[in-house]
């Protein structure tokens, strides 16, 4: 498995660092996400904080080995929603949830499911780069394996493999024992991606991974996302329309009407959402009329 992964990642193409035009012929993604090989889906998800309903009735499918972007005005609950997908939501006091989140057909909120298992299989990268400051680069990459108590051999190979897939290897290969806090913001975020990859997740959730980064770092991370999507399902929250267009195969548009909880106004293939939106509100939003 590792061998094939390395093979697939060494095949770096120029496209990975450039803009990706949606709707190109080689895109094998079906028009309707439900028709693809669905990996993760939500059924009638409602989310509360205390008594306040903030997300209402979200039905989304995330097809295998694709990138889905969640877009919408800030404060409409996209970050909250993405945290429910790997059970990080429940750490927030007062949080509540209804509906189902099906991963490989099973509800991850079922009482028989160990949330820790879910978080190993569905990894997460956060808005602010958060490497463990007391650990070296190498220890950071391996930290997930220690935390989830997964046995491993060949730590050096795992570190190299993960850092390569997160496109950080060449920059840090000579100082793997340096403190993670010595890296720049963009490098730290890629280290966080490498750290998430080490436990071998099938899904990677990214909550505005580039919002704290400069354009150069953003480009590099977008390239990484594009590559990773060949082997895993990625869900990314972003405020950046251009970024959604560059990296994602599918897009879901969240919107909270005044005083009402947020809903998914429209979802589908990214090119459809951006070129031929069905809902006028989507059209206004993607064309920058509000938000």
């Amino acid at each position, binding site marked *: 498995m590792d061998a094939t992964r390395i093979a697939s990642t060494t095949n770096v193409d120029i496209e990975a660092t450039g803009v990706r035009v949606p709707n190109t012929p080689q895109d094998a993604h079906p028009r309707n996400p439900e028709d693809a090989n669905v990996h993760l889906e939500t059924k009638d998800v409602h989310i509360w904080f205390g008594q306040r309903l903030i997300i209402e009735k979200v039905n989304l499918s995330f097809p295998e080995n694709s990138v889905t972007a969640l877009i919408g005005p800030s404060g409409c609950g996209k970050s909250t929603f993405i945290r429910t997908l*790997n059970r*990080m939501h429940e*750490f927030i*006091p007062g949080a509540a949830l209804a509906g189902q989140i099906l991963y490989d057909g099973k509800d991850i909120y079922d009482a028989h499911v160990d949330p*820790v*298992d879910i*978080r*190993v299989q569905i*990894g*997460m990268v*956060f808005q*602010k780069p*958060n*490497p*463990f*400051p*007391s650990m070296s680069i190498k220890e950071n990459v391996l*930290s*997930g394996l*220690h*935390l*989830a*108590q997964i046995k491993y051999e060949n730590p050096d190979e795992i570190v190299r493999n993960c850092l390569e897939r997160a496109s950080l290897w060449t920059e840090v290969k000579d100082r793997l024992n340096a403190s993670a806090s010595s890296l720049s913001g963009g490098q730290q975020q890629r280290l*966080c991606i490498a*750290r*998430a990859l080490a*436990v071998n997740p099938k899904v990677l959730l990214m909550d505005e991974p580039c919002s704290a980064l400069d354009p150069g770092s953003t480009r590099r991370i977008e390239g990484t996302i594009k590559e990773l999507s060949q082997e895993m399902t990625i869900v990314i929250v972003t405020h950046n329309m251009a970024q959604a267009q560059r990296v994602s195969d599918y897009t879901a548009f969240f919107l909270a009407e005044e005083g009402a909880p947020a809903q998914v106004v429209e979802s589908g293939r990214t090119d459809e959402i951006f070129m031929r939106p069905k809902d006028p509100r989507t059209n206004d939003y993607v064309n920058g009329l509000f938000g």
Partner: protein
Amino acid sequence: MSSSTLEVPGNTPTPRYFGREKSRTKSDKLFSGSIIVAALSSLFVLTAILIYLGSNSWPVLVEQGISFVTGSEWSTTDGVEVFQIWPMLYGTLLNAIIGLVIAVPVSVFLALFIVFLAPRNLSKVLTVVIDILAAIPSGIIGLWGFLVFTDTAAGWGQLLNQYLGWIPLFANDQNQFARSPFIAGWVLAIMIIPIITVVSREVLAQTPQELLDAARGLGGSLSGSIRMVALPHARGGIVGGVMLGLGRALGETIAIYFVLNLIFDVNIYKILNPEGGAIASMIVAKFGEATPNEINALLGAGLILFIMTLFVNLAANYIVKRSQREKLI
């Protein structure tokens, strides 16, 4: 006219720096002056303590020489006055160590419980309970330790001796279990648990949420996340809290006075024997009937205690501060 000089290339204007605004009016000067004088009162007091204790005890310290701290005899009879505090000095440290051995794990677990495990209402209540425990006067702890706790703890000591007496630490050659360093250690533990818990709770509660999120998002269990993220983050603060507790333990007087037998014969490790020492308690015990020279010797013992606790306290504050600064960077 001045503008022309400024425009000469390479001749950059001299910047003006603004220092602290000086007090202008008379009343302002008076105000600042009196505040400064008052603010220096701590320096004044600390220096005065050193001077008064030092100068009063100096003749005795010179007379007794180094054996003041290394010898084990305290006697005013026979016309020869011998003042040596080694058993008290050592006993002070022994009590404090026993206290820390009990208090540190309890405090750290309690702080973890309050911050990470307990339901929110319980953790609020517990925070208050710990504050109350910290506010109970040492005289009351001494009273309780003397009349209530000694019996219980002596029973524990007896059992320890009965089952583990073959370990030298738990040997007892007096067949008497009350008033031992073991009990003094427990009483000290009760007094320093709140100090260590309060500091540990504060630093643990400041563990950055994004680091905890990262650990949990990677599939860390609660204990794993605490071990890998929260404890490394809080380590400096916890060590500082332990040092603050140590400072308190070294200076504790009344509670120890009631639960420990003060013997001028150093008890190195037999913590269940009814023999121990504590400088502060010894001062209270000897003070009432002391001869003038003996008073000066007690002042000397106080000086040594003062320097010892000052050092521990400053080290504690330094460690806490440094760990906070690291977190800021």
